[in-house]
């Protein structure tokens, strides 16, 4: 019998701490598979965020650094500048990247920093218990927007990929989703493309992945993916936002 599919060795055997049905695990797997298929394990350094993925250093079987909240692109910059032949990626959530780390991601992008950013957008702060995120949808109920996010009070969600795509620095920016198998396969292609962009020394690459949070959205895993498809994709259209040949 031939193996059709099995867990890549770029993921350690440490069980993921994520809640049942949380799609962080899928995105971890796609990143690990891309590293595996590109044969870059020995060159890769991952930068973990603060947020649900804070323990990413336990899961990726590569050298890892754990950054302060929002600072992963700055840590990646320091690391990459020391060893430009290393492949450096950050893995960040929406609070980390689009709120407290908005300056770091913007400037890493505009510098064309030759790193890869995996941006997991689930429209909520998961680790701290479901507070409003910079990407929370208008009207979405969270523990700090109990009456629904009111744009008059706290503004509108940020479309990070579109915003960064206006800059001259980035070489590749795409948004994808993991709500079904087809989109998971597409996301894998985008993530691989982002790493290839870095390997080719073209500059900054980022893949925004729409992700679910069944626990803090108060849904079953299946309901959460349905909600993602119905509500998040209209707000955050999928597709390649920037690609420099």
């Amino acid at each position: 019998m031939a193996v059709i599919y099995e867990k890549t060795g770029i993921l350690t055997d440490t069980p993921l701490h994520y809640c049942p049905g949380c799609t962080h695990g899928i995105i971890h797997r796609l990143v690990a598979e891309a590293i595996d298929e590109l044969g870059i394990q020995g060159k890769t350094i991952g930068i973990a965020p603060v947020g649900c993925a804070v323990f990413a250093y336990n899961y990726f079987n590569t050298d890892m650094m754990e950054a302060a909240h929002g600072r992963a692109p700055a840590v990646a910059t320091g690391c990459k500048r020391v060893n430009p032949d290393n492949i450096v990626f950050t893995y960040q959530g929406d609070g980390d990247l689009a709120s407290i780390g908005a300056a770091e991601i913007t400037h890493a992008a505009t510098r064309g920093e030759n790193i890869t950013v995996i941006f997991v957008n689930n429209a909520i702060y998961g680790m701290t218990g479901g507070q409003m995120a910079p990407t929370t949808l208008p009207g979405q109920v969270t523990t700090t927007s109990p009456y629904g996010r009111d744009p008059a009070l706290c503004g509108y969600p940020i479309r990070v990929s579109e915003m960064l795509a206006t800059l001259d620095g980035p070489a590749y920016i795409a948004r994808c989703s993991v709500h079904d198998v087809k989109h998971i396969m597409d996301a894998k292609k985008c993530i691989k493309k982002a790493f290839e962009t870095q390997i080719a020394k073209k500059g900054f690459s980022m893949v925004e992945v729409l992700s679910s949070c069944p626990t803090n959205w108060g849904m079953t895993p299946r309901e959460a993916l349905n909600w993602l498809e119905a509500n998040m994709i209209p707000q955050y259209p999928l597709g390649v936002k920037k690609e420099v040949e």
Partner: protein
Amino acid sequence: MGQKMLMKGNEAIAEAAIQAGCRFFFGYPITPQNQIPEYMSKRLPKMEGGCFLQAESEVAAINMVYGAAGAGARVMTSSSSPGISLKQEGISYIVGAELPCVIVNMVRGGPGLGSIQPAQSDYYQSTRGGGHGDYRMLVLAPSSVQEAVELTQMAFDLADRYRNPVLIMGDGLIGQMMEPVEMPDYHPAADLPPKTWAATGWTPQSDRERAIINSLYIDPAVLEKHVNHLYEKYAVMEQTECRWQEEMTEDADYILVAYGTTARIARSAMRKLREEGIKAGLIRPITLWPFPSAPIAQAAEHARAFLTVEMSMGQMVDDVRLAVDGKKPVHFFGRTGGIVPTVREIITQVENLAKEGK
């Protein structure tokens, strides 16, 4: 020793760092330390593998330092008081992850935006950790441009030896003043530990463990053990890295305690007082942490009193009092807000103590 040159303190520190093998610098403009990043921006791009990067903020700069140090490089950043406050988050993480780096603070008046003139009002912040959590940094306080050069080079070795950031605490005057300098021939200490912990790329076939640069220990028992480990390093630093200079303390009735720029002024005052027949001496801490308590405690056996002089409202004076332990009076004179005390002011302070028999 090389050729004697006339150099500004800030530029001399930058050149000394380069001589010590620092090839990475991340910073953000702030007065009065701008000549350090400016000098680095000229020199580092011309050096093999060298990189100067002006970060988007002090916060980003210190986190770039974290990334570069984690990758095993000799790396430095510099700033001045308000910028150093912003760096405290990163410094705490750097200590927690046990990364070596050198940080320069050319202290200016505070609080808030304060002034751009020299001050020493960041003593508490520098010597008590500064950011969150249980930790210390080695704090080196040069009082001349030549000493700034020597301490900068030593700082890189100390940082690597202890895997802990080292802070060079100058002030606006040390940074802006020009003095003759000889750049020493730098050789790293022969017994520095190899950086086998650095994140440089790993596979299961590598001859080291997978690198995880991290300060998160979610299990309280494990975190307590980690902090105890840090404090074991600090105990060694206290035993072996304490540095100070004593002048004319053997027979002194009045001991002046001052560091950095203030120590130069106190030295002049001490000499004038001696001419007047008042037996004054000077203890100049070179490491502010670890603090040279031993020579101060020893001087307390015979001196009549101490006068601590600072460009602050009195911060180091607390450490002097702890060292003297109530055996003798410890007086304080300070100017703040960017005002530098004068020789005359210090003389008057000591004359008054002598007159009043204190």
